[in-house]
């Protein structure tokens, strides 16, 4: 008998006990847990939701594809749902906790093989438990001339989980799903699908040609619950001969319009090949300080107070960061255009030769070269209390959009007393307006405020036609609704076809069968 106290919805204790016994026979008793000491780690969340609503019934950690196939057979037999995590670092989006209470967490951390890194064709094929740190160390140890792209949690997160949730990094390869190439997926019925060229026996092009033949399927395995991805190929950036990170500070909040309008053509023409980071100065202050050290009052920090603190700490009201990569000649040509553009806008240009020892410059330099840095975690000390929920609406890369979204965001933040710590990340034609709703989880009032604040932001932005690119386990249904009933229904039909018993991560992205 298991010592489980939480059961999957609709599963009897007797059936759950049988399932647990069969799981133990597959992966070994040491890798199946229903005891609270092991479950507790999977309940730790930063989002404004009650842990009880997302507590798993147990967890298990398979070591191979074959074990996953057998686990899914057991899940189908007893209708036990599994919530798959790779490294489980989805901070501010739900970490490793399931969307609904009682699912078993299937933790793929033991599947951590770097299967291949090809330095000629510049690609990698890895298992889900591989972390960016692990892959970075491998590349360094083998002195391979390639660079990674990684998100802000960098070292402790992993490429499979981040790519499948459509996360981003900051090098020219930062749109991670775009640069993925080939998946291996265990379907709910145990079949193994290799996407793209991977289905062909003896193919050696799985990691070099994305599309294969017929419908392109990889996308349906991202932000979804249609299969368990057990291998992912992705492209690596060749190590550039010259790397030139740079920053530009602007001293007026209204400058954001001209900043974005100047970046757009540079970005679309690939003169700036990486995403462009444009953080509001309060974001940078929050990374480096505690709120209580600079401001002692509740409520959203007034903009004039924030500006004074930002200037005092030496940040711009807006802080642009990007980088150039290539041969000396390429970098020189592009740099002249960029320097001229930002000088004409009145920005203060920061380059490594002048400010290279600055801590902030150094960690952004790491971000834009795919080098692990843990500096950004300092943000979790701003408010303290362990609360973080990312609000990340997408916008056209136009200056006019910034002011509109900022005004909308601040109006809601004012209502709930949450600071505006935000960054615009400019892609090829879009922007992610990323706002970290930082709050104190030890304070029930702040927790409720953060929850209600996020819900209202989603609603109000949707009313203006702005969608969210990614959300947490507590809001997946609400965000899915904003993309319309037809999409939701088609998602459900696909789910029913591929996973008729609904054993794979029910509720992920609002998809149930």
């Amino acid at each position, binding site marked *: 008998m298991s010592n489980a106290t939480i059961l999957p919805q609709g599963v009897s204790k007797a059936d759950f006990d049988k399932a647990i016994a069969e799981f133990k026979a597959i992966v070994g008793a040491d890798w199946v847990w229903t005891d609270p000491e092991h479950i507790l780690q999977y309940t730790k969340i930063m989002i404004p939701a009650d842990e009880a609503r997302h507590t798993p019934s147990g967890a298990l950690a398979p070591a191979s594809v074959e074990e996953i196939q057998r686990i899914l057979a057991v899940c189908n037999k007893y209708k036990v749902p599994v919530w798959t995590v790779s490294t489980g670092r989805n901070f501010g989006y739900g970490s490793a906790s399931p969307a609904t209470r009682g699912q078993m967490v299937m933790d793929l951390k033991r599947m951590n093989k770097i299967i291949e890194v090809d330095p000629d064709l510049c690609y990698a094929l890895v298992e889900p438990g591989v972390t960016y740190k692990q892959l970075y160390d491998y590349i360094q140890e083998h002195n391979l001339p390639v660079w990674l792209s990684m998100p802000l949690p960098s070292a402790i997160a992993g490429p499979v989980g981040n790519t499948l949730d459509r996360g981003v990094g900051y090098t020219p390869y930062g749109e991670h799903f775009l640069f993925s190439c080939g998946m291996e997926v265990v379907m709910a019925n145990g079949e193994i699908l290799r996407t793209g060229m991977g289905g062909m026996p003896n193919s050696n092009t799985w990691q070099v040609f994305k599309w294969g033949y017929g419908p392109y399927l990889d996308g349906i395995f991202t932000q979804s619950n249609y299969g368990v991805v057990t291998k992912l190929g992705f492209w690596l950036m060749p190590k550039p001969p010259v790397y030139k990170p740079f920053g530009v500070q602007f001293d007026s909040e209204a400058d954001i319009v001209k900043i974005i309008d100047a970046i757009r053509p540079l970005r679309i023409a690939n003169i700036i090949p990486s995403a462009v980071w444009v953080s509001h100065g309060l974001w940078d202050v929050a990374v480096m300080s505690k709120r209580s050290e600079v401001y002692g009052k509740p409520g959203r920090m007034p903009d004039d107070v924030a500006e004074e603190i930002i200037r005092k700490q030496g940040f711009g009201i807006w802080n642009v960061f990007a980088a150039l990569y290539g041969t000396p000649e390429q970098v020189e040509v592009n740099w002249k255009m960029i320097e001229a553009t930002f000088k004409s806008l009145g920005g203060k240009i920061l380059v490594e030769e002048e400010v290279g020892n600055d801590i902030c410059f150094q960690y952004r330099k790491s971000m834009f070269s795919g080098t692990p840095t843990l500096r950004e975690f300092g943000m979790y*000390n701003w408010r303290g209390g362990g609360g973080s929920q990312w609000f990340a609406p997408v916008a056209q890369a136009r200056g006019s959009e910034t002011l509109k979204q900022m005004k909308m965001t601040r109006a809601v933040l004012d209502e709930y007393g949450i600071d505006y710590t935000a960054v615009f990340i400019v892609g090829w034609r879009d922007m992610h307006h990323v706002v970290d709703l930082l709050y104190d989880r030890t304070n029930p009032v702040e927790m409720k405020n953060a929850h209600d604040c996020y819900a209202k932001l989603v609603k109000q932005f949707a009313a203006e036609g702005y969608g969210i690119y990614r959300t947490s386990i507590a809001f997946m249904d609400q965000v899915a609704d904003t993309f319309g009933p037809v999409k939701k229904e088609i998602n459900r039909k696909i789910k029913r076809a591929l996973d008729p018993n609904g054993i794979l991560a029910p509720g992920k992205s609002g998809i149930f069968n």
Partner: protein
Amino acid sequence: MAAAGTLAGLVAWPAQGRARTARWPVAALTGGSTADASFLKGIGPGHDAISLDQDWQGLESQLDRLAGYRLVGLLDPGRHTVVEAMLQARNARLLSLGSHQDGRHRISTAPAAHGVGAALAHGLARAGFEHQVAEAGLGPVAGSFTGVADLAAGDWAGLMGEALGRIAAGNWVPGEPRQLRRAGRPNSHSNDSLVSFVVQL
């Protein structure tokens, strides 16, 4: 189990309980907060002390060395997030996890640590400090405890250190109301936001 709104019925920790031989080797990890001294004093003697700077690689090696230990920690939320990832990768078993800020304490406990919230609330109330303590128990035995007193942050770090030190050493009786002894003025007062934890490595 229903929430307990009263702290009545707490009994003093028996002398033999305090003197009981530790069943687990204990290490303590702190990150340079002003509460460290109280916390470490609360844990008591006989533990390996590790102070965390930004040398994450060094911590990895330390954790490798501590296999078989119970690790008691007090860190800021940023550092804790990283340490937590390292511990999870090692398959550590989490016994207690608490967030502490401005006199508020939110603690999640596995059965082996049930009752920490009650003991902390009692210790703070006895010393007359304002506080709010919420404990969510996970497991079949103790359910949950919530204690809110209308009574400053107090020496919560010393009290938590004592309770978590006992849990780590295996000298805690889960769920049984216990009175912690460190209820005096704090050695060092801290309103920093901090995360406490006990894990078995």
